[in-house]
């Protein structure tokens, strides 16, 4: 196999008129990314995207915690499709990898076991009086950014290049298991050589880091994070990835899945507090970005308007490398510039306080 195999796994991506379904985790931890995606599509690319106030969670976190039955999530998904029909759209896009996996699984199950689709139609009608048509296309929101990556490159204000050295930034891309491991044909590049983020990175001047645990899970594991007793599983798997990537000295990590971005950020904090270990340069953590934040920086958006102050690992070292101008005093302001205090310091961000057990 070679890495060009990604070209075997391509899919039709709609060019316009999207029905947007948001992510529980992205809106909680990266609300600026969500807004950036909608703004980039609408303002920078001139596309029509509907944020329908009537849609809900797909309930995927409940489904993968095994408390929401398959029949129930199928009916919730059918309601989302019904709302899309009502609004006059056909191209369904999801901002969440868990949801994207759920939608692909359900569409495939309906195909494979038509009686489940029939049952879903009955359940939806009985519960809500609604009927539905399946979407003409289904994509993850990163597929859409990938689709427009060359246009974004044309509009770029900055590139993924170190302004001091002129060298490409070294980027770890993390895809998120449910993007293509469940249905490899549904993801750009499949599950072996997913290209959705790598394509953006290459188009915008960066360089992907290949490392042994590149395809390993971030460690969410649903019940393994959501239940406090099980969180050792979650941090252990993030730890494995971070240990594996650190020798390659990445400038930043970019994640496809909002959960993965949050875990790789927060577990770096926890590991630094517990062991004094940090994985980035200069004794700091490795900044972890969403792909919307990466696209936003390339397009010249202000980092605080992208919500990058909500990360636990400081992003300033990366902003400095990219030559992004930012106002340090504006980082922790609330609405309308109101000062609301700032977070306490943390080992992962503070070189002076580091005690590195590896030294």
């Amino acid at each position, binding site marked *: 196999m070679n890495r060009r195999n990604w070209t075997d796994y391509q899919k039709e991506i709609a060019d316009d008129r999207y029905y947007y379904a948001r992510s529980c985790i992205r809106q909680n931890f990266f609300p600026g990314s969500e807004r950036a995606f909608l703004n980039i599509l609408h303002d920078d690319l001139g596309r029509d995207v509907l944020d329908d106030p*009537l849609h809900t969670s797909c309930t995927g976190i409940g489904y993968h915690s095994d408390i929401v039955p398959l029949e129930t999530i199928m009916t919730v998904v059918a309601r989302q499709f019904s709302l899309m029909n009502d609004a006059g759209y056909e191209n369904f896009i999801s901002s969440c990898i868990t949801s994207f996996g759920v939608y692909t699984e359900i569409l495939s199950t309906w195909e494979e076991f038509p009686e489940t689709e029939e049952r879903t139609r009955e359940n939806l009608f009985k519960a809500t009086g609604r009927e539905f048509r399946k979407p003409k296309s289904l994509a993850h929101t990163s597929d859409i950014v990938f689709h427009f990556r060359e246009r974004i490159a044309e509009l770029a204000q900055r590139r993924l290049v170190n302004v001091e050295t002129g060298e490409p930034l070294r980027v770890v891309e993390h895809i998120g298991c449910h993007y293509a*491991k469940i249905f490899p044909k549904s993801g750009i590049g499949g599950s072996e050589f997913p290209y959705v983020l790598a394509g953006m990175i290459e188009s915008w001047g960066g360089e992907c880091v290949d490392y042994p645990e590149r395809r390993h899970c971030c*460690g969410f594991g649903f019940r393994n994070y959501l239940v406090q007793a099980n969180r050792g599983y979650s941090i252990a798997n993030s730890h494995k990835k971070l240990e594996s990537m650190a020798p390659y000295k990445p400038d930043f990590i970019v994640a496809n899945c909002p959960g993965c971005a949050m875990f790789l950020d*927060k577990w770096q904090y926890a590991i630094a507090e517990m062991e004094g270990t940090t994985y980035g340069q200069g004794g700091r953590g490795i900044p972890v970005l969403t792909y919307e934040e990466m696209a936003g920086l390339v397009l010249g958006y202000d980092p605080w308007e992208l919500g990058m102050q909500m990360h*636990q690992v400081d992003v300033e070292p990366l902003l400095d490398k990219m030559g992004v101008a930012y106002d340090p005093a504006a980082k922790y302001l*609330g609405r309308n510039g109101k000062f609301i205090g700032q977070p306490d310091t943390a080992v992962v961000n503070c070189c002076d306080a580091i005690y590195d057990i590896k030294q």
Partner: protein
Amino acid sequence: MLCEDVRFREGLHACMNCGVCTGVCPAAEFYDYDPRQIVSVVQTRDDEAIEALLRSETIWFCGECMSCRPRCPRGNTPGYVIQSLRTLSQRLGFFTESRKGRQQLALKRIIGENILRTGYCITPRLVRPELHPEQGPVWQWIYDNDGEIFGRFSPAYMRRGAGALRRMDDDSLDEIRRIFEVSGGSEMFDAIERHSDRKAREMGYDGATQEYMMDVFTDNTDTDE
């Protein structure tokens, strides 16, 4: 009963016990856990052995990352098999016989009830810093100033209208609740509560109280009983 679950039919054909699933499994690295063995037991169709699995810790280790799915040379999905076993374990009330299984009550109360209350699995007020020390000081700052910070990115934070973290309209929430009623979601929630209450009383609690739930949420002692 397992065969009624389409995930079981899709997830298990004939396993040759090669162990590739175990080789790539994040849970197998962390726990004393071997998905190959689960599939091996299930494909014997031995009811007694399967019931023992339904009562065991073993079926609750998987993180449902599905890394096993694209790797299996026989096209099986051990993760789907696990999902179908977990569903059955809860329907039959066997999940309360293991420490990891009993955690389903916490998941139902935290995630499940939040779905019916807000229309989302997770909302910011659910991620309480005292239960999430790993979220760190930035999350504490966000939690303490949520209106200011989320308000910067969404005009609809905890209000009606389009946008992130908006308050769901009553009609949509009613539809979701009716979907849960009609499609078996509420029945599953009731089964989790009912069996947890029985087990809690057996264990000396005054039913499935908040104290019982917090104990199952935090107890991570050795899980083999």
